């Protein structure tokens, strides 16, 4: 589903190479995890895939079901089925959470040539999905992420994912700032969306999240490249021994 080949990316402001040849292939129905030390380029990879400004792709390709992601605007990538759960969800004062969700859902439907969801239908679906994530009516009414706790913000990201039903979901350190209960809620939300037509790329520092969201493949990223890939055991190895051994072996 998601195919990345030899991706090289430079940070425009600092003229600094961040990704130095990433190769990654995520098939439909699978969950891949990326782990790696700070500064290895994990978040940059997620931002570049989502289309954030400030990065220049100097080489390589990234496609979603064969379509060139890098040629699309961020909203076109979203309509094509890509979703990034932000590491730091953005606060938008003055925009109600419900308005935001409905605008996003209908914008994507419109882009795909589908009919807009009626207000009644939308309300029903949003209440059901929010309830499962323990997001109450008050959180839906408030401005997007404003005054939300760290855990509430992350749950709100998963709610957006549940409403938009993307096919390729990238979770950027969704576990950071979560307590044990919130982590379970978020993981349950993600697991409920797992199916044969959907794939996940889970970026995390800790193995703990992967106890809840079981990955099929684990990658280790370092210095802008994927240096090692393996099964779920690789995450356990990192948890036990840190990155030093793996990096020494890879370099």
């Amino acid at each position: 589903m998601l195919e990345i080949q030899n991706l090289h990316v430079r940070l425009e402001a600092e003229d600094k190479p961040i990704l130095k040849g990433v190769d990654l292939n995520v098939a439909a129905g699978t969950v891949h995890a990326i782990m790696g030390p700070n500064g290895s380029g994990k978040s940059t990879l997620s931002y570049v895939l989502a289309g954030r400004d400030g990065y220049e792709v100097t080489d390589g390709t990234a496609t979603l079901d064969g379509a060139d992601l890098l040629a699309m605007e961020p909203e076109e990538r979203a309509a094509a089925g890509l979703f990034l759960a932000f590491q730091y969800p953005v606060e938008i004062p003055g925009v109600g959470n419900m308005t935001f969700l409905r605008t996003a859902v209908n914008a994507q439907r419109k882009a795909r040539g589908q009919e807009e969801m009626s207000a009644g239908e939308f309300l029903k679906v949003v209440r059901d999905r929010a309830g499962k994530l323990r997001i109450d009516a008050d959180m839906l009414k408030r401005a997007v992420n404003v005054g939300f706790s760290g855990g509430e913000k992350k749950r709100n990201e998963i709610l957006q994912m549940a409403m938009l039903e993307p096919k390729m979901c990238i979770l950027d350190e969704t576990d950071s700032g979560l307590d044990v209960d919130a982590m379970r809620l978020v993981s349950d939300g993600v697991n409920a969306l797992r199916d044969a037509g959907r794939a996940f790329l889970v970026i995390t520092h800790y193995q703990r999240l992967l106890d809840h969201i079981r990955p099929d493949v684990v990658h280790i990223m370092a210095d802008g490249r994927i240096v090692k890939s393996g099964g779920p055991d690789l995450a356990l190895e990192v948890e036990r021994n840190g990155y030093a051994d793996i990096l020494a072996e890879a370099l």
Partner: protein
Amino acid sequence: MPVPQAKLDALAARIAGLDLARGGWAGAARAEALARLGAMGLPAKRDEYWRYTDPAALIAPQAPHAATFAAADEPPVFDGIERLRIVFVDGVFDPALSDDLRLAGVEIELLSRAGQTDIHWAREVYGVLEARGQAPVQRPLAALNTAFADEGVLIRATGRAARPVALIYLHRSETSDAILHHCIKVEAGAELTVLESGPAAARFNKVMEVDVAAGGRFHHIRAQGRDHGRRAATHLFARLGAESLLKSFTLTANGVLTRNEVVIELLGDDGVAHIAGAAVGDGAFHHDDTVFITHAGLRCESRQVFKKVLMNGAVGVFQGKILVKPGAQKTDGYQISQSLLLDGDSQFLAKPELEIHADDVKCSHGSTSGAIDEVALFYLRARGVPEAAAKSLLVMAFLAETITEIGDEAIAADIRLRLQNWLERHGR
């Protein structure tokens, strides 16, 4: 200090073609206004209060030409609101377009018809609040209005008005120069909503004096008309009694020059005054909000919330003052003026002032200028919202705090729709 000759010359030239309506109960008030005006002269660019806005086009003997504009793409503002309509075309009352002026809970009379009948309450308002508002800052255009206005409405609310009273200002002549003067009295415990809409004329000078007695409630919502070439100088003078409330919201979209002055005196204890403005301008647009709020009573609350969205060289001005008089303890004053500059060409000039002569008060003010939040914009786009719609959503979010000041949800929704349509037309 003697008045500079240039100001007196400008005044003589301006009023040469105007007639002073003599006689009747307002005659004395007009003569006094003319005397006030003679002692001030007309404003000049070098006046401290006109530093950011050039008054030349507002004081010229002839109104500068302004093309009329018929918006075919949306129905007139407030069209869906059940209201009593009073229509002025280029400043002239139009009985055929207006509703019957009878309304439960309210007495309405035209200024032109009231000349010979003694409407005693209006004597205590006409020119009186304007005169009170001439110190410490001179407002010559308001004195000129009091002296020469021969039309306007006198509205007295004695109970709860059954419907809002809508003053509709149509602009049909490209050279019209309109002067209107309205007096409003909200009696103790009464409640009234006044809507104003439309450009009025090529050049419009309007004064509204509002006297709110104890426990009275006055709501004011206006939309100033989409004509690009129109110019306007408006004044709202208000005096508030104990436990009374005044809320005023203004939407300004387009207009080459607008100066809206608001002068409020919180005289009784526990009064509340909220003044809000949302202005959107693209290109030749100069919009000036000049506000002066005096706290004289105990425990009064005032809010000034002004936001401007500017692009392609548009200019926004805010001059806002809170004066807390000696003894006005427990005052709660809030003032915010912000601009969202959608490009590098636009300009926002702000002069917030606080003058406090009491020791137990809470007053805050803030003024900011900024661009669209790029991080928020990316977040919205990453969720599939196209760039233009995402920007529009962020602009509406920026303006939201002003629209919140409109109490009536149907009116607020209408204002929101106008803004959204404007943003869509202007590519944001």
